[in-house]
Structure formats: C-alpha cells, structure tokens
C-alpha cells in the first residue's frame, strides 16, 4: 500500500504580509525604545591649565589660595553645565610654576603637551613676560590673575590680565596721601616685580605731581627677619622728619607684612606716624586678633589705609567667599586679595571657550575681550583695554577701624574715579 507523502503547507500571501508588517512594527518599536534609553551625546572635556605658583618664596602661602579659587570657578561652571544638560565640561590642570620665569616656561610647555590651549596664569609679570613669546607663537591663551606690571602690557597678544596695571592704583594712592596732607613718605617694599614696580610708580607720581618727598628701603622676599630693613625705614622717617606730614607706605604680602608690623610696633618713630599700604595689604590676617593681637593693635593705631580695585560686600564677592569657604573650609580667600581675580580669570577662560564654540586658541583669544566686556565678577568689572588688561574701574579706599561691636574691619571711606581721576570722600 502506497503511503501518501505529507503535504507541505504553503504559506498564504496575507500571512507573509502580516509577518513582515509585524516585524517592521516590532523593529520600529524596538528602535524607538532603544532611542529612549540611548545615552546623552558624548561628553566633551576641555582642559584649563592652572599655571599658578604654589611653592617658592613669593607664592607658597598665596598660591594655593588663588589656585583653589580658579578650581572653584571650574567646579561651579561644571555643575551649571551638568544642570543645563550640556555635554561640555572643564577640567582644571594645576601646574606649579614655582614663581620663576624658568618654571613658568616649563609649565606652559607641559600644559601645551597635554593639549591645553587656555591657561589661567602665570601670577607675576616676570613669569608673564617669560611665556609671552611661547604663547604668541603657539596660540595659547593665558589669563593672568595677578600680573600688574606695566612691562607686560602689549597689544594684540595672547596674554590677558584680569587686574588693571599698577598705574591707576599708584595715581589713586598718591592723590589720597597728598589730599590727606602728607608731603613726606617713607616707603618699605618687597623687592620683586610687584613691589618695585608699584614703589617706582608711586614715588614718581608723588614727587612729580604732588611735590612730595620720599625715601625708600627694600627687602628680600625670602628674608625671614626684617629688623634691619624696618630699622632703616625708621631712620628714613626720622630723616624726613616724623610728624603730622610724614607717613609710611608699605608694599608687602602676608608673611612679610606681619613681620614688618611686628618689628615696627616696637619702634617709637614708626608707631607715631600713619601707615598706607598697597592693595595687597588688605588682608584679614592683619586683623586676626586671636592670632596676632599686637599686629592688630598696631595697624589700628597706625590707621593702615589703602585702595582696592573692587568694593567689599559686593554680592558677587560675597557669594564667592561663601562658596570658597564651603568648599575649602581650612582656607580663607580673603587672605589673598588676588584669589578674587583668580576666580574671575577662570570664569573668563571658560566663558571664552563657550562663546567661541570651539577649543581653539585663536577663537578663544578673539572672544575673551568680548565676554569680558559684559562680565562683572568677584573682583569687579573685567572690561579690557587694547593690551588685554582689565581697564581700571573706580578704586575704593579703606582703612582699618572698629565697628559698632568693636570688631576690626576694613572701613571704606572714599572712592577714586578712574574716568576723571578724582577722589570722592564718603559723607
């Protein structure tokens, strides 16, 4: 009996069409689901070099505070970019320049080797001039948070400077000293480019414009004992004639400033005259009664007076101080007046990159003056002149005083108008 072979079932056309349609629908649905769960566009990280000295005689105490201020700006910007869903992030790459020209040059080369095109730093004018040719030929943007010397003011280069040059501050201070009735000034200054530069500018202005008389003494920035130099200052003040028309100008940083005050408080001549200071002298360390009651008494008695390029208690400065204290509880940004400029320098660097839309030295260089024009930071306005240096805004005069609670503070009492070069005392 023949066995009938089983019939092969034929696929009907509608069934095939249905399967194809189902497959297409399922594929589409799967693709759509995959899209829903797809990762965000790939994150792009732009490095920001922090060529900031954190060692060496000049910057071992100030440098870390300034570097952390720049890093704080980077962290804040990254948090904001993340909240906005942006794929862009910035990475701070610190590199210690050691405060030397050699160190700065090597630092910029190292950062360039790591692909860095935008750098916050270096700190001093000597370092800035050392890297100038390198950054210009290799199109690397540098924003210095504290170089103020006129020797580095060059138009159309890749160096920008967040603070104004020393010239307006010297003008303001010489005018203030003269208007308060002082005709003779004994000057003590740190022998570095900042101290010497500011001393020269002040002396020239005070003598030629206001007919004043000065005698100066410098000190080595690495010296630990300044008794000899302070003794010489006392002799100079006596030579000028210690009296109501004679004052002292001190151009120092923190450690050297404390040493000078500690020596000067033991000197009857220096204790009997008024003291003025450069903007680098507005430091909370000089008003820390717990740590140095004798120094506090001295600066109060000497009525230490000076200028600063931005008013205290401006809301952006206060926000910066609070954020800094929250992130670095063991450090005080007020110990380094230039920490405010470091914060702003980093902000300008990042905003320049964002505005340029690409990480390219030429593009960022083109955008920074534009961004700075409308940026108001922790250290005030950052609008820039043709040299890429911040245009000096109005300067605020401060002096040491006691508030209603008998707490020491820097009381603001006058404003120097940059545009008109006039001094206005507060009522």
């Amino acid at each position, binding site marked *: 009996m023949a066995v009938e072979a089983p019939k092969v079932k034929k696929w009907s056309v509608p069934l095939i069409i249905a399967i194809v349609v189902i497959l297409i629908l399922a594929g589409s649905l799967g693709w759509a689901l995959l899209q829903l769960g797809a990762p965000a566009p790939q994150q792009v990280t732009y490095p920001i070099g922090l060529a900031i000295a954190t060692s060496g005689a000049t910057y071992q105490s100030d440098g870390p505070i300034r570097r952390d201020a720049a890093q704080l700006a980077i962290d804040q910007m990254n948090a904001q970019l993340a909240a906005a869903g942006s794929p862009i992030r910035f990475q701070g790459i610190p590199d210690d320049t050691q405060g030397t020209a050699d160190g700065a040059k090597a630092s910029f080369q*190292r950062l360039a*080797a*790591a*692909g860095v095109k935008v750098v916050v730093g270096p700190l001093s004018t000597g370092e800035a001039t050392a890297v100038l040719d390198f950054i210009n030929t290799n199109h690397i943007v540098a924003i210095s948070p504290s170089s103020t010397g006129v*020797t580095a003011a*060059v138009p159309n280069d890749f160096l920008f400077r967040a603070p104004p040059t020393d010239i307006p501050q010297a003008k303001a201070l010489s005018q203030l000293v003269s208007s308060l009735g002082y005709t003779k000034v004994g000057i003590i200054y740190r022998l570095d480019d900042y*101290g*010497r530069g500011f001393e020269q500018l002040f002396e020239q202005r005070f003598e030629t414009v206001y007919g004043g008389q000065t005698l100066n003494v410098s000190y080595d920035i690495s010296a630990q004992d300044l008794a000899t130099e302070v003794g010489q200052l006392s002799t100079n003040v006596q030579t000028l004639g210690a009296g109501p028309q004679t004052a002292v100008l001190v151009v120092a940083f923190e450690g050297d400033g404390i040493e000078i005050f500690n020596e000067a408080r033991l000197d009857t001549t220096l204790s009997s005259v008024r003291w003025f200071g450069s903007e680098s002298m507005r430091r909370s360390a000089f008003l820390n009664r717990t740590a140095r009651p004798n120094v506090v008494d001295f600066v109060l008695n000497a009525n230490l007076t000076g200028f600063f390029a931005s008013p205290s208690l401006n809301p952006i400065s206060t926000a910066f101080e609070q954020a800094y204290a929250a992130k670095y509880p063991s450090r005080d940004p007020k110990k380094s007046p230039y920490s405010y400029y470091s914060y702003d320098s980093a902000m300008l660097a990042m905003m320049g990159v964002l505005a340029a839309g690409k990480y390219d030295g030429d593009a960022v260089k083109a955008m920074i003056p534009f961004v700075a024009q409308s940026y108001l930071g922790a250290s005030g306005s950052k609008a820039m002149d043709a040299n890429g240096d911040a245009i000096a805004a109005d300067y605020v005069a401060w002096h040491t005083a006691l508030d209603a609670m008998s707490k020491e503070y820097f009381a603001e009492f006058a404003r120097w108008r940059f545009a008109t070069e006039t001094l206005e005392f507060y009522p």
Partner: protein
Amino acid sequence: MAVDFSFLLPLLATSFGIYLILALSFNLEYGYAGQPNLGKVFFYSVGAYAAGAITTRVLWALAGAPANVAFMQAPGAAIRQAFARSNPGAILGLFVVSLLAAAVIGAAVGYLAAYPALRLRGDFLAIVLIAVGEAGRVFGRNYEPLAGGVFGLPGVPNPFAWLPARADYAAYAILVLAIAAGMYLFAVRLSNSPFGRLLKSVRDDELAASVYGKDAPRAKGHILAIGSGMAAVAGALYVFYVQQVYADDFIPLISFAAVTMVILGGVANHKGTLVGAAFMTLVDFVTRPVFLAILGINWQPPFDLNYVRYLVTGLIIVLVLLFRPKGLLAEGPVDTVAMRVAQSWKTPATVDEPARDDS
C-alpha cells in the same frame, strides 16, 4: 587626553641637556677634585647674564634701537624677537658669540672664586660658595641696568626663532643635546687625562699630592675655572631657552638640583651623572598633575600633588644614600690606554681591582 610630543620632547630634552652640563661641571669639581661648589647657581647666572646682556643689546642696536620703545619691557622684547625671526644669520651668530663669551667670563669668575678654595676646605668652602651664589642673586635683583633687576630682561630670542612654531623649540633642544654631548665627552676625556688623575690625588690626599710635587692649589683653581665655564655655558643655554634673564630664577635650588643628580648617579662617575640627570628630569615630570592629565586621569587628590615631587626627590636621595651610598653607578678606575692594555693582559681569574692612579 593625548600627549603632544612636539611640546613635551623639546621640554624634556632641553631641561635634561642644561642640567646635565651643570651636573657634569659639579661632578668635575666635587667628584674628581673634592671642591664642593654649592655656589654653582652663581656661575650659571653669570653665563645667563652675559648671554642675555650681550644678545639683547646687540639685537637692539641692529634693530635700530627705537627711542620711543622701552628696551627692557615687553614691546622692546617683541621688536628683538621680530628682528631675530627675519635675520637668522644675526641671531645664530649672536648665539655663538654669547656662548663663547659666557664660557670665558664664567671661567674667569670661577678662577677668582678659587681664591677662597685655597684657604678653605669641605663644609667651609661650601658655605662660602653658597654665600657667593646668594650675593650674586641679590646683586642681580638690585642692579637694574644690567638685566632689569627684579623685572627681568625679556627678548632673548630662540636662535631658531626663524623656523616655524614648534620646529624652533625642537631644533633648539637638539642643539642643547648636542652641546651637552660635547660637554660629556670633554668631561670624560678630562677626567681620564693626567690632569684628571691629578685632581683625584688632590681630592684623596692633598698633602700626599704636594709631597709628590703636584701644585694642588693651581689644580683646584683650574678645575673651578673649567667647571664654572661649563656652568656658565649651561646658563647661556638656559637664557636662550627661557628667552629672558630673570634674577629670581637663580635660586640655590638649582645648585642643589645638580648636587642631587651627581649624588644619585654616582660621584666621580660621568655615566652616573648622565643617569642622575635623566632620572631627575623624568621624576620632575611624572610627579606633576599634568602627567596624570596626559594619562587621562581626572583625579583631584585631597592633597597638593605638586608637593609630592619634593617628597619623592627627598625620599630617593635618602634611599640611595642608605642602600647605595656611592650612587647608582659607583666610581670606577680611570680609563686610559695603559689601563686597558694592563687589563687585557690579565686573565679573568686574576683580574684585581685596579690600583688607584695617583700620579
């Protein structure tokens, strides 16, 4: 993050070359002659000042010395840089002249500095020379007409400034390495020469050397002049690299860096100095945060990574002094033709430690 070797290699090579010359000069003075010249940075600065002062002033004159531009400020420096870019012959010629001038002036100053070496020994000489180095730095900071004092004197162009960007630094690095290689060969030949053996005899026993009729004070004066001339050449090379003279660069740390390289590599062993210089150059680089960035590590340690470099350097020195007090490569016998012939006569089984040649 990718590494851009066109920046990194010239940096490492230039740094290594300059420090190698400095360390070789210290090794000749201390390792072979027993003169601890811890004022090395002074002679280094003499070369830097000489090269910087000559180059900037001649270039300024060649560029027409514009009266309305400040010579010592950045605009003046820009004029010198621009002139060098368009006049390769001028800057290369100035480089050679500056290098020679630095060597001669450095050697002359070194010979003068030998006078205290005739009266002082060991620690006292070292202290005097440290003081000389500091006095030189303080003078440089205060005397502005020479090189701008604390402001520095910018605008010493790279001798290859006329090459495209990056090629200029690469070419300069090769030149520095070539000069360092020349200095190395010079140091090796000098230390294996009769004069080198005389130096060793003065180092080991000055009285004995004198008894044999050797003029020990003269030998010390000569080696300090030679070492100082070499250090001045290193200073001149440094100033053409940094492109400015800056008084604050000449800190005692530079002297101690050279000392560290020699101690690490091995005193009185030029190969050791070579190893020490290379090792310290690498340690300096790999202990910086930028090295982590190049490796793609975005890590913020709870401490300042920059200070680790100092700790690591100190630790290495302590470990080397504890476990290899003679350095990584200990002092060997002099390498003369006679010594080689004598060694070839001996069978391996009878090879002894060669006697020290105190001629």
